């Protein structure tokens, strides 16, 4: 597991790109980033029941003149498919940050199908996807995805690989460490 503080870089990227609203259904990998955003008076963090609400939030924010982003786990990408019609049809920005499950060392097989399908599903809905597997690259990828979204009026997603975040531990009897 990386010790590099990528959430600090993402928070800095959000700040420099003037992201004001962050919708989220939290994930373990997002904890520190969400803490940083909560502590920032320039940002509002909205906890959602379903990730597709975040696409609505981002859409409304843009129509009203604010920049927003959606942060979620890869399983949540399955919940946003139809909602992604909004940025596609309105030709407006939609910035997404996705922490991956079902990849490197995943011990919960139930996470694997959606994890495997995540990039394909996003791309099928017209989203430009950046997959990042090194902690040092995450902040830069978020800045690049934000520029593409906010200046190009498109949907972009940064997928943060499980190798960056670390696999969730499910220790059973007999397994050490």
């Amino acid at each position: 597991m990386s010790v590099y503080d990528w959430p600090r870089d993402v928070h800095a990227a959000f700040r420099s790109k003037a992201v004001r609203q962050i919708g989220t259904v939290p994930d373990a990998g997002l904890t520190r980033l969400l803490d940083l955003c909560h502590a920032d008076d320039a940002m509002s963090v909205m906890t959602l029941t379903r990730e597709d609400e975040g696409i609505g939030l981002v859409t409304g924010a843009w129509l009203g003149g604010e920049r927003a982003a959606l942060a979620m786990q890869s399983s949540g990408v399955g919940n946003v498919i139809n909602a992604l019609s909004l940025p596609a049809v309105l030709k407006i920005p939609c910035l997404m940050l996705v922490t991956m499950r079902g990849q490197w060392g995943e011990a919960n097989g139930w996470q694997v199908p959606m994890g495997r399908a995540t990039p394909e599903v996003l791309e099928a809905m017209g989203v430009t996807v950046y997959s990042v597997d090194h902690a040092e690259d995450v902040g830069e990828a978020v800045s690049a995805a934000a520029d593409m979204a906010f200046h190009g009026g498109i949907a972009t997603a940064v997928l943060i690989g499980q190798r960056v975040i670390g696999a969730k531990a499910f220790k059973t009897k007999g397994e050490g460490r």
Partner: protein
Amino acid sequence: MSDLMAKDGRFDRRALVAQLLQDRGDALVVGGLGASTWDLAAADLDERNVYLWGGMGLACSIGLGLALAQPKRRVLVFTGDGEMMMGIGSLAAIAAAAPDNLAILVLDNQAFGETGRQTGLSAGPTDIARMAEGAGLVETMTLGTAGDLPALKELLYERSGPVLAVAKIALTDDPLVLPTNNGAAMAARFRAALGLES
């Protein structure tokens, strides 16, 4: 304008929406997918309306993002019972964010009017206003008669939000009044009306 109450004692949706938008001031209005958006177009083709031809379940979430971005303006969401039920969880996020300028009106005909009038869940024991109350909205009401209209107007325009009202409306055959289905043009016009670059 047609009568506010339809023959079966429920509200006429077109007359109700038209009356509510008569004195809208600088309010921004989001119309939920389907008939609510057609109502909005029939009543008041205004650049400060968001017309939704898709994204079922997201009208209130769009209203939330908009209300937070435009805190000095009233933001109204007019949507149907099926659309509201699909996004019912969004009321919890709205209650938590607590934008005091957001008001929601559910036009409840207890049916999926756009897809063949199949019976909706609000025809049964489900009470949308009570679900909104449970989600933590500041104030809710269910309209009974035309006499409730002043209270509804006050709730939607004056009371501290987020608030939600349910109007039981009749199933009617209304002339189709379609706003533009060009979402990009609609979004650009909406932003321009707010002085934002498109």
